[in-house]
């Protein structure tokens, strides 16, 4: 099929599938986010704040845990097929293009909703008042221009994210008609040991993601997480009972779509805890270790780049956005393979790559905090001779502590949940929690996988919470 590392028909099919699923995923996520964000922007209800916060959670949610939740809902033995069978209807399959798209919409609808909600909450309340007093159409006058400005960025960001997603394609895709470039890359290395093919696939994927990430970085300037999304504004154009009911239904559907799969993971996970294989203990330890090392790498690099500043550092910090764990993992693998057994490198490589991939997000969280510390107190520190390392220790680190905690939490949670290069390298006894989950799911041991999913969920969010709480513990916010 392949001629000496060139691209064969199967690779072109993978390229086509990758682009198709990413475009469809981004399209559906954005289209569904419009009514949900609009409803959240103009309605207040008990738990609104909690729901908006929950919309930030999928960014930290290990992808494979999300897939597990979707399988519990839409999978072979899931709730939906159970209901269909009870009605005497034929079952539906979640595997293939629609499954991949469904999973990506589930993972990215919250992000799209938050990005659009940011757009809505950036509209001054006075404008709605003015429109109401003029009797002007709010949609055409205020909302559509905002969407025209916000949607391209949201679409591009989600498109780029869906290009690199590996776990979703691994579990729900596969076969000649539903293989992404990432999956093809994985198979080329893991099953065919065809390193030339892997190298060209990695190059293709890198170019593709680079272009998409560049577009997304240019179009979307809003933060991915953490931004406060204020109260809804008073609206005079949406007072009717019909509109109220519509918004209530939309919000209820959104809550169900986001919460139901997660609730199922929790529920089945509790049952599955007893079914977990003994290897789970080692896997949890390795996940923790890799996550902590990755956090140290991400924070160290982010600090260095943020302190150096300038366009070069900014570019270097954004570079990993174009890469995926598998692409970087493949590159390192080609470098390491002649010198070292892969298994010896598995965990360090995983930590290094996770750290690099978390770098752009860590940098985004740190840079404003460092800038503010310098702007407010830099001259005083200079006047007192607080320079060099002392400046870092006395001034910068304590004042940037909240941002450091947040960035560290992001990096740790992202790393704990990541299933990427580790899948290329790890030997039998070297799995991390996500990889152990993938292996259990591959062996159809769903109960055990659900138990591991719960553990992984607790680890990822626990790590985030610990770091973030540490960050909030300082004396930073005073005076």
């Amino acid at each position, binding site marked *: 099929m392949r001629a000496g590392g060139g691209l064969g028909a199967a690779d072109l099919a993978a390229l086509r599938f990758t682009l198709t699923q990413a475009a469809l995923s981004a399209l559906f996520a954005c289209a569904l986010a419009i009514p949900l964000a609009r409803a959240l922007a103009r309605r207040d209800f008990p738990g609104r704040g909690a729901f908006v916060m929950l919309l930030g959670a999928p960014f930290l949610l290990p992808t494979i845990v999300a897939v597990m939740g979707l399988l519990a809902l839409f999978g072979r033995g899931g709730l939906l097929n159970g209901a269909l069978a009870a009605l005497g209807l034929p079952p539906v399959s979640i595997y293939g293009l629609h499954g991949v798209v469904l999973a990506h919409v589930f993972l990215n609808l919250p992000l799209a909703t938050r990005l659009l909600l940011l757009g809505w909450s950036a509209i001054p309340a006075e404008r709605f008042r003015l429109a109401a007093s003029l009797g002007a159409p709010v949609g055409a006058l205020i909302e559509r221009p905002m969407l025209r400005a916000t949607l391209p960025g949201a679409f591009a960001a989600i498109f780029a994210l869906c290009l690199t997603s590996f776990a979703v394609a691994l579990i729900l895709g596969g076969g000649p008609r539903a293989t992404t470039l990432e999956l093809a890359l994985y198979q080329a290395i893991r099953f065919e040991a065809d390193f030339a093919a892997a190298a060209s696939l990695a190059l293709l994927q890198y170019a593709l993601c680079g272009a998409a990430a560049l577009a997304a970085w240019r179009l979307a300037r809003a933060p991915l997480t953490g931004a406060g999304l204020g109260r809804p504004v008073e609206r005079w154009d949406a007072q009717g009972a019909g509109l109220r009911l519509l918004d209530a239904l939309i919000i209820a559907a959104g809550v169900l779509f986001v919460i139901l799969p997660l609730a199922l993971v929790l529920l089945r996970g509790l049952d599955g805890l007893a079914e977990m294989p003994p290897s789970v203990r080692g896997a949890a330890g390795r996940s923790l270790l890799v996550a902590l090392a990755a956090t140290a790498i991400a924070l160290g690099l982010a600090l260095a780049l943020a302190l150096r500043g300038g366009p070069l550092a900014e570019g270097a910090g954004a570079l990993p956005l174009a890469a995926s764990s598998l692409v970087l993992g493949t590159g390192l693998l080609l470098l390491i393979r002649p010198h070292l057994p892969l298994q010896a490198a598995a965990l360090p490589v995983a930590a290094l790559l996770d750290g690099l991939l978390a770098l752009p997000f860590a940098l985004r969280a740190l840079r404003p905090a460092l800038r503010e510390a310098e702007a407010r107190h830099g001259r*005083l520190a*200079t006047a*007192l*001779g*607080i*320079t060099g390392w002392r400046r870092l220790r*006395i001034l910068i680190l304590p004042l940037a502590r909240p941002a450091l905690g947040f960035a560290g939490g992001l990096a740790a949670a992202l790393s704990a949940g990541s299933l990427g290069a580790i899948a290329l390298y790890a030997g039998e006894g070297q799995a991390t929690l996500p990889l152990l989950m993938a292996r259990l799911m591959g062996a159809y041991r769903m109960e055990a996988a659900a138990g591991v999913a719960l553990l992984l969920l607790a680890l990822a969010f626990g790590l985030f919470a610990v770091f973030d709480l540490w960050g909030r513990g*300082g004396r930073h916010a*005073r*005076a």
Partner: protein
Amino acid sequence: MLVLEGLHLRAGDFRLTADLTVPKGAAVAVMGPSGGGKSTLLSAIAGFLAPAAGRILWAGRDLVPLAPAARPVGILFQDNNLFPHLTALQNVALGLRPSLRPTEAERDRAEAALAQVGLAGLGKRYPAELSGGQQSRVALARLLVQERPLVLMDEPFAALGPALRAEMLALTRQTLMARGATLLLVTHDPGDARALADLILPVVEGRAHPPRPAAALLDDPPPALRAYLG
């Protein structure tokens, strides 16, 4: 003695020239309209703005090549004079040595300075736990332990009410001036200038003029300053 010799400052489009002498131990009010260059002048003396030309001499030595912390200069800014994450004592002790762990002797000196400005026993408080006037006193205590012969103040008490400001100026006079420090204080208030200053250094239309006795200048201001004083 502070000598500004053929000094030319440039900050963006703004230009300021100065050719003047300030006698040692004088309390000098730097006065003039907003945007006239008062802060620019202080920035240059403190070492935050490199002059385009000229020299800044203190006791015969040119300060221009020295880093801000290496100059015989202590400075209070308009705001952010304390680090919010450090205690009052730590903030004061930073005037002795750039370290968060003062030695026993350094602690004692910082405590004594705090007592001198009326804050005995409040060393463990963070700036947010102190009133605005108390925060100013902590900053003043740091200036005291620094023992720099030349002190620059860029409207440091502007955020305080008139009574508190008068109190701080009196305290500055009692403590810093009593030790023979030379003080350049930016102020907008002729009352402050009268209360504290021996001399007034007018900064008007891009030029810093030689200092003149405060009372005489305020009673009979030159035309450029008259418009400003009203």
